[in-house]
Structures are given as C-alpha cells and as structure tokens.
C-alpha cells in the first residue's frame, strides 16, 4: 500500500519539474523537451500507482483500462512531439543560440 504512495509521489515530482521547465525554458524547442518530461514519468508513475490499487481492489476491468490508457499515452506522445517540432522549424520559429544546426544547413528554409 505504501508502494502506491511512493509511485504517486514520483509521478507528482516529475510533473512538477516538467511544469517548471515549460514555464522557465528560454525557447520553444527546449519547452518541448520539458513537456516530454511531463508525458513520460509524470503520468507513468501516477497511472502505475492507480493500476496497483485497482488490482488490490480486485477490479480487473478497471486495471486493464488504466494500463491501456498508460500504453496509449506512451505510444502516441512521440508522434505529436515529432510533428510539432518539424512544424515549428518549417514555420521559422527562432531558436536561441543553437550550437550547431545540421538541419538548417542541409534543408535551407526556402
């Protein structure tokens, strides 16, 4: 039973770190990196805690649905991240002080 609390605390900590990152980071691309932080361990910790508690209550249908929601978020989040990052680059969003930019060298923006 304490395991559920520990898992939820881990999830809450990483969600907090991701939120602070989204509010503080200097440019759009770094904000995307922090939002990935929310979507991976911030949700996975709390959802695994809820999954263990549902098994403890012997509610199998609910447990399977929670596990499926977790897998769904994990599988679909990188697709959205990839699409929005490419769209931001094609749209010409300014990135601050890039150290090296291979993509802009190989595919110049019009």
């Amino acid at each position, binding site marked *: 039973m304490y395991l559920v609390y520990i898992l939820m605390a881990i999830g809450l900590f990483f969600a907090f770190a991701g939120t602070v990152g989204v509010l503080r980071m200097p440019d*759009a691309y770094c904000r995307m990196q922090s939002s990935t932080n929310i979507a991976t361990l911030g949700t996975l910790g709390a959802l695994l805690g809820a999954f263990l508690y549902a098994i403890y209550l012997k509610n199998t249908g609910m447990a399977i649905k929670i596990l499926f929601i977790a897998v769904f978020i994990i599988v679909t989040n990188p697709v959205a991240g990839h*699409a929005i990052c490419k769209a931001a680059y094609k749209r010409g969003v300014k990135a601050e002080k890039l150290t090296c930019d291979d993509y802009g060298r190989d595919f110049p923006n019009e």
Partner: protein
Amino acid sequence: MIGFVIVSILYIILAIALLYRVFKGPHAVDRVVAGDSVDILTVVALVLFSVYSGRGIYLDIALSIAILGIIGTLLISKYLEGKL
C-alpha cells in the same frame, strides 16, 4: 482512500499553472505544446478520481480526452506546416 483526491487536486493545480504559458506564449507552437500538457495532466487527474470513486465512467472520459488531444495536436501541427 483520500490520498487519491489530494494527488489529483495537485495535478489540476499544475495544469492551471500551465495555463499561463497558454495565454502568454509568444508563438502558436508554445500554446500548442502547453495545451497538450494540460490535456495529459487532466487525463491523469480523471483516472485517479475514477479509482477513488470506483466508477468506470470516468475512465472512458479520460480515454476520449487522450484521443482527442493527440488528434488536435497533429491537426494544428499539419496546418502550421502548410500541408492541410
């Protein structure tokens, strides 16, 4: 078990903090990224509340919010890229 309600309220507070970035973001991309994160945090809060109250209906709502969130993000990014 009252702990689930407290944790889900904390998640909602984090989502409200993210709304600052949605309103202020200098570019549309920032707003979309912050909105996607708000979606995911809402899904987690709904799942925790569903486990607390023992009703399965909140899980279905959480699942549909997750599906609609990903579709919205993909649509807006395709539109910004100019392929729609």
